[in-house]
């Protein structure tokens, strides 16, 4: 039985899990369903934004975005609204293409599905490209990329950054023992994967923006804002008492740029500066507000935390991205590794946790 990803995940109701009452298989069915749903639900990899991009006729240009994808994604949905005129072509990072024509009315919406040829759960640079109409022009009015949800996950695996790690629901069915000893089976598997899922079920993209062609945004010799306002950003709250989340900040300086750096400053106070490497990539980690679950809109301190993005150097900015990355991108959420493990039992062979005692039923 495959690990189906439900688009209507069952409520995981823990109220029936009380002492002196057996935890039934029906509760575990909901847990297995929720686990698979979280792994395969998709994400906003590059949030929709208004790029500053205009390509003259027959121009071929690539835009580099530094992103933090999830391995479970097998297909990405690229969406954009194009202005200009004539027939242009979009090429996704896996080489798939779509041609589109901007009508006389002035804009054309395009939704293109990319079949990913090289899946990864690690930080990576995606480089979609455009070929502007040979007798026309291309202006990008909006642009973004979503990771399409999965229908079914492959069973098993142990690393969410390298395998589907689906949990087979049949292994938590009524009448079966509580399994633990093999991958993809039983609530023991779900318990072991919780830490990894905490790092994987994240807000991959918080903000993205790019400039190119005739609309390339220039950098000056001192730090200056690139955008008219600071983009809104809010991280996940994962444990009691947490008030900040660590996010990843990345920016590319366009080819030919020299001595460039970018500074990211949160309204909540933190600031970090990153210098571009030989490829033009600048990377840094920044602390921002995390969600306040007591607030009706999730904002902490009744104000939107935002990230001021500034650039410095000789050249132009190609792209800026903010997002929650996997552990290899430095700590994605700042949660102590043992925090989620503290109350989990230890399954399989080995000593019991202290709070559990071994008693034999007297007859």
């Amino acid at each position, binding site marked *: 039985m495959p690990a189906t990803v439900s*688009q*209507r*995940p069952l409520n*995981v109701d*823990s109220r029936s*899990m009380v*002492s002196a*009452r*057996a935890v039934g*298989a029906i509760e575990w069915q909901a*847990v297995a369903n*929720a*686990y698979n749903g979280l792994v395969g*639900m998709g*994400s*906003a990899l590059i*949030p*929709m934004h208004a790029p500053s991009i205009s390509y003259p006729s027959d121009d071929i240009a690539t835009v580099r975005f530094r992103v933090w994808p999830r391995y479970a994604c*097998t*297909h990405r949905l690229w969406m954009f*609204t194009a202005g200009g005129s004539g027939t242009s072509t979009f090429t996704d990072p896996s080489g798939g293409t779509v041609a589109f024509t901007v009508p006389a009315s002035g*804009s054309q*919406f395009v939704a293109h599905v990319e079949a990913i040829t090289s899946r990864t759960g690690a930080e990576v640079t995606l480089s979609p490209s455009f070929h502007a109409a040979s007798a026309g022009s291309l202006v990008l*009015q909006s642009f*973004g990329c979503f990771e*399409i949800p999965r*229908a079914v*996950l*492959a069973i098993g695996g142990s690393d969410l950054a390298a395998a589907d790690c689906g949990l087979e629901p049949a292994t938590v069915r009524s*009448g079966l*023992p*509580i399994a*633990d000893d093999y991958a993809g089976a039983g*609530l023991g598997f779900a318990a072991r994967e919780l830490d990894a899922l905490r790092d994987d*079920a994240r807000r991959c993209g918080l903000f993205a*923006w790019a*400039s190119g062609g005739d*609309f390339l945004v*220039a950098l000056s010799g001192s730090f200056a*804002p*690139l955008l*008219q*306002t600071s*983009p*809104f950003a809010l991280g996940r*709250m994962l444990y009691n008492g947490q008030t900040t989340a660590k996010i990843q900040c990345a920016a590319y300086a366009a080819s030919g740029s020299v001595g460039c750096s970018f500074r990211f400053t949160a309204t909540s106070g933190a600031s970090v500066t990153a210098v571009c490497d030989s490829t033009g990539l600048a990377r840094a980690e920044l602390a921002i507000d995390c969600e306040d679950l007591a607030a*009706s*809109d*999730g*904002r902490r301190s009744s104000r939107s935390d935002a990230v001021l993005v500034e650039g410095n150097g000789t050249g132009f900015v190609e792209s800026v991205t903010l997002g929650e990355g996997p552990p290899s991108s430095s700590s994605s959420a700042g949660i102590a590794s043992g925090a*989620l493990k503290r*109350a989990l*039992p230890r*399954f*399989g062979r080995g000593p*019991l946790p202290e709070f*559990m005692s*071994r008693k*034999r*039923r007297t007859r």
Partner: protein
Amino acid sequence: MTATSENGYYVRGADDEIIGNRVLDAGASRDIANNLDHLEDEMGQAWGNVCGTLGGGAGLTYWELSSASTTDYVGFSQLAPIPVFLRVRSADITTTRLVVRLRCYAASAGTVGFYVALMPFDPSGRRTVAPPFDGSSRFAQFGTSSTTAVEALLTVYAGGLGDSWMVPWPTTDQNGNAAEVAVFMGQVEVWGVTTGPLSRIEAFAVREFVG
């Protein structure tokens, strides 16, 4: 301690031992369930985050109402809708909540009104006729007469998601073969009306809040 027997296997509570397996107590079970539920709450995505550019030649700086001095709701030029994958929390609850942030500016002291609409995803492109504002939870409205940029937070709910919200997309099954997934998709649109000179939006962001 009561044990439940199901086909010869016993699911026991704390302080008892399952032959061949370890005991899973209710406290630990609750922790696992609550952790998963909380992770789902916190996976609210940032579906769109639109900011105007400073300079850059003739690049986009902000988005103006396409006509001035009009009492009809018209779309903002060059501000495309933001598509969203909608999530439902359970089979019985068909709502999702989106928090929309708008930073707006009125060109004069005249009243400017905006409304945000959550509509089913439309792959044919941006509409030219505003969806009628019906006061339902899928619409959020506010106005400003300030010539200083103001920020509004609007909460939009998607209630009663039906077949019109389902969109099929290619994906992969457990064996890596082509499959299809049907997902709920919507799009968030901004419409405005002004009784005075042109007014504009400087930022537009949509994120999902489950909480």
